[in-house]
């Protein structure tokens, strides 16, 4: 079953200096349970590709399907719900909410969705990403980068989404911590989550089962 399907997706950014084709007629499908990496030079459209899958951006033309649901034409509120329930985001800068503790950051998506027992569940998630319970009370600025990224992964998993999207999740981490994070993502994938990682790092791509190479907004080559 395909969890993500892009059909002839083009994304054009209109700028005063002219327009930029960030994605150029991309057609791609991703099966449930795949671990995908997206590589390519800077400016090749990797983030745009991920944002369109993540329902943060809408294509200029073409169709996007997430778990068989057509995304085109959905309202802002519908897209928001889709992101909340079906997609987990992991960012390069971790992007935890600074006013919330680690545990509260994990709880937050569940509160948004109205999940019962979110306090207990958040503790389980914290443990499952390999963090000590007492770190749960720390604010993001009291955590190391690696710890923050673990919390971010736990947050991404909180509402049991179908897809995890990670844009350079190891870009701000040293190589040892990067390895830990990739192992965590790999373990998550082994438990059945579809994961898509954007990276410049071939070591990171090494964890994945398939790599999309983007050049100038086109999928140049799909490798294994």
């Amino acid at each position, binding site marked *: 079953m395909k969890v993500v399907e892009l059909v002839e997706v083009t994304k054009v950014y209109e700028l005063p200096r002219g327009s930029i084709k960030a994605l150029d007629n991309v057609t791609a499908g991703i099966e449930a349970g795949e671990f995908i990496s997206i590589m390519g030079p800077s400016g090749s459209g990797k983030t745009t590709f991920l*944002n369109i899958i*993540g329902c*943060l951006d809408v294509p200029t033309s073409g169709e996007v399907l997430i778990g068989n649901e057509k995304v085109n034409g959905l309202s802002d509120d519908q897209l*928001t*719900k889709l992101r909340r329930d079906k997609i987990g985001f992991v*960012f390069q800068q971790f992007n935890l*909410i600074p*006013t919330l503790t680690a545990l509260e950051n994990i709880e937050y998506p569940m509160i*948004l*969705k109205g999940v019962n027992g979110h306090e207990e569940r958040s503790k389980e998630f914290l443990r499952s990403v390999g963090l000590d319970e007492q770190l749960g009370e720390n604010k993001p600025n009291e955590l190391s980068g690696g710890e923050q990224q673990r919390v971010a992964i736990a947050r991404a998993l909180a509402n049991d989404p179908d897809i995890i999207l990670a844009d350079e999740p190891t870009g701000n981490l040293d190589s040892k911590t990067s390895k830990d994070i990739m192992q965590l993502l790999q373990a998550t994938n082994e438990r059945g989550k579809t994961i898509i990682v954007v990276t410049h790092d071939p070591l990171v791509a090494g964890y994945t089962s398939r790599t999309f190479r983007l050049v100038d907004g086109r999928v140049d080559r799909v490798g294994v």
Partner: protein
Amino acid sequence: MIFFEFAKRNLARHKFRSVLAVIGIVIGVMAITALGILGNSVRLAASEQLYMIGNEVVVFPYGEEAVSEDNFKLIEKTADVAIPINSMVDKVVLNGESELVMIYGMRSEDVSKLLEKEDGQFLKHGSLNCLVGSRLADNYELRVGERATIKSQKPRIVGILKERGMGFDINPDNAIIVSDKMFSSLYNSSGYNLVVVKVGKIEEVEEVRKDIEDRLNKKEKVVMVMELKQIVEGIKEFFNILSMFLIGIGSISLVVAGVSILNVMMMSTVERTKEIGVMRAIGTSKSGILRMFLFESLILGTIGGVIGAIFGFGVGFLVDVLILKEASYLFAPSSIFYVFVGIAFGIGTSVLSGLYPAWRASRLKPIEALRYE
């Protein structure tokens, strides 16, 4: 409520800035509350002092020295009660002290129709005694049985009047009342300085006033007829406008506070752009972001409003006690009302100022907000 919690924590994150914003609201609300209470207290004080019998019509001579006896006869026909009064300011010796005092001459039987006594008795018909007003009695420690000296006469004080406050007819509190007989033995007068007409029903006041004018001012204007109801209404209206004016001044400081809240909120929406992007990305709706910011301005407004109202009430208290020398006006419902007006204005201004920044924050596009550094 998660967005309320966010609002609280975001305000706590920039304590100094939040405190400054609150201070603005505090000052505005304090001004409104204090000025509102002040205006209202002045109004209450004034209406208490005004001898407010709405059913009186007072006739004064116009262009002549006095209302003539003939004209008084005409006035008497228009209503059940017409009280002719003479007045004169003269040197009077009270308890050994000489003082200029207002002396009213009235028919003995009329006194009780217009005034109340605190002590002693009213005047008997044709009496050569006198009554004194309450303030005069206080100031000169006069008691029933003592004598006043007016010219060569030494009338005995047989009664002390109840305090009545300032009136448009007569001001008895600082005056001496003597009978018409006594008055004419002291001064030669023809006619009367004023005539007080009491009308049975308040609805007929206007009619009686017209009637008197029609009868007396036939050829030329000889009397001026004043209706207390109108004057009292006019004065009340004046004090209402005064209260409004004072509140208007207070509102200006609130507008300033509103601008500062707008400024603070705009700053935080810009600073938190990235955070808003993250929140939106992981599933926070537009309305969630909107609520978060509105709660922030609501919290600022409520804290500022309540503190400001308490301070305003305190200032109102000081002003009432120091200037009006009377704290009871403070607890009148019409004064307490301004405490709530102040709070409502504070919260209203704050939320109104937060509306635009909140709306802007909620409309940020998630990807653009995420890209913001």
